[in-house]
């Protein structure tokens, strides 16, 4: 099954159907995130839940990819530079058919194909191994450069974190993507505002972050990262600018969808206990 890139239909009914179906996908992905982190008794739920709507849109609509042929040379690529949020990536890959959903319950276990941080050599659909912050954007640049060299029309998507934006190598890559006019590259900043030790603003301020990317020569789009209509618009090919890489600054809520995890620093890298898993799943079902 090839999922083709299409722009959203002008017909309002089709579009609302699409958004409803992606919302359902995101809901299932969030439930899988809670289940797999709960089963693993470790992992990073907060920054996974904040990114679920964006990954649902990418894998469910925007990207040209084929789960039956994960190494298809002409596929669009997605790199999760904030690799600790891999539960959302695994949830998306399972949801869209890269591996059986039951395998999610092996997350972080010995001999599992789905590692604590993404491993491209073990997991089908993982485009690049990440986990050490600040490297995925550079790798995505390399993929975009290769596409230009080979005259291919694939797009490269990469998600970085707000805490990750404190890494110097992010800005080395920001400079290079603009210098090489990588308009086949779209980066998404998951701006949930929190990192391990507290709010970004207290640990190491990154604002005004959209202005920083503009100053580095990027086409910058600011959206609500949970509004699927805005997400789809920002990711559509029309919103690119010729000769410039695109940065989508997505304002999100860390822990989105689970009341007791929302905007709570502690849920960056903590697993829910069985009763908390049940409570979270009930909330997600009711939403």
């Amino acid at each position, binding site marked *: 099954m090839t999922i083709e890139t299409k722009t959203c239909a002008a017909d309002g009914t089709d579009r609302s159907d699409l958004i409803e179906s992606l919302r359902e996908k995101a809901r299932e992905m969030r439930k899988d995130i809670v289940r797999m982190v709960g089963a693993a008794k470790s992992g990073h739920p907060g920054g996974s839940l904040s990114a679920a709507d964006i990954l649902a849109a990418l894998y469910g609509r925007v990207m040209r990819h084929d789960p039956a042929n994960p190494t298809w040379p002409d596929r669009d690529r997605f790199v999760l530079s904030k690799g600790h949020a891999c539960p959302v990536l695994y949830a998306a890959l399972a949801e869209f058919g890269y591996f059986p959903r039951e395998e999610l319950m092996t997350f972080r276990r010995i001999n599992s194909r789905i590692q604590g941080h993404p491993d491209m050599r073990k997991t089908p659909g993982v485009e*690049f191994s990440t986990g050490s912050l600040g*490297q995925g954007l550079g790798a995505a*640049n*390399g993929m975009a*450069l*290769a*596409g230009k*060299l080979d005259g291919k029309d694939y797009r490269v998507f990469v998600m970085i974190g707000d805490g990750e934006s404190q890494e110097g*190598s992010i800005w080395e*890559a920001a400079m290079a993507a603009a210098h090489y006019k990588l308009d086949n590259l779209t980066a998404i900043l998951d701006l949930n505002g929190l990192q391990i030790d507290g709010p970004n603003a207290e640990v190491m301020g990154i604002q005004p972050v959209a202005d920083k990317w503009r100053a580095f020569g990027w086409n910058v789009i600011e959206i609500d990262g949970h509004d699927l209509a805005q997400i789809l618009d920002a990711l559509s090919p029309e919103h690119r600018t010729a000769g410039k890489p695109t940065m989508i600054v997505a304002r999100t809520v860390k822990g989105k969808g689970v009341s007791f995890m929302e905007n709570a620093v502690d849920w960056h890298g903590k697993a829910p206990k069985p009763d908390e898993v049940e409570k979270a799943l009930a909330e997600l079902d009711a939403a």
Partner: protein
Amino acid sequence: MPEMLATRKAYGQALVELGRENPNVVVLDCDLSKSTMTNQFAKEFPERFINMGIAEANMMATAAGLAACGKIAFTSTFAVFATGRAWEQARMSIGYTRMNVKIAATHAGVTVGEDGASHQANEDIALMRVIPNFTVIVPADAVETRQAVHAAARHAGPAYIRLGRADVPVIFDDTYRFEIGSAVVMREGTDISLFACGGMVAEALKAADILAAEGISAEVVNVSTIKPLDVETIVASVRKTGAAVSAEEHTIIGGLGGAISEALAEEYPVPMKRVGIEDCFGESGTSDELLCKYCMTGPNIADAARIVLARKPALSAVEGEAGR
């Protein structure tokens, strides 16, 4: 006098050959292309040369992304930056991922010369050989460099190639055949094994001449692949000689001497001494002055051999008594 040529110059020429042979070869550099000699490739294949500016960490990540899309990516800068500044990118984005990236770093060792300690990488072999999946090659001269660059391009996976700034003697002729993982016995001997890499191979040959004049038969082995180490050839040599000296333009901790010590400690322990930088930083000076001051010349290797040989007879005496 033998012909003198820096290994970085041979690298620049080999890259151009590779570029002509294989359209998938791309080259990245961090604003040092005139020194690393990648400028020759840049001139002939401007579309496949990517200058990353002074940003070594991002160069490694970008090369990994290019390799993920089928490119053979060569990255070049000075060894101190390639392996120090960007070590974690090499580990995470190249070693762990087994990407087809070749880090070909120049200006290794004290023979960088006048630039001084900040620019003299004496730790790079140690740093790169501890990363799983990396092949580590230290060519001895221009002939071996050219072949090593071609071999690294054919080898699927990460490689580190260590190159020098200064001219070194051309010690191989066109009949030489380099193979990844094969150490080469350059001169046979029976009393002591001299294991060397890079520019120290020529010095080890000088040491063998010095020792020969004293009636000592030294075997000289060029260990140009540090990883995977050719343990078989190394052990075969010391089984014959019963004594070893290593010589490298690198700290004696963790490099060629470290690798051989590890292998011999497990496989066939013999008296040994490591010649190289003795756990200190370098300084400014000419290449030759620095090699003398830091005791990495043929006479220094010969001195080390005499010290090791003095420890050897005690062992044979014990064996001799047991035999009586």
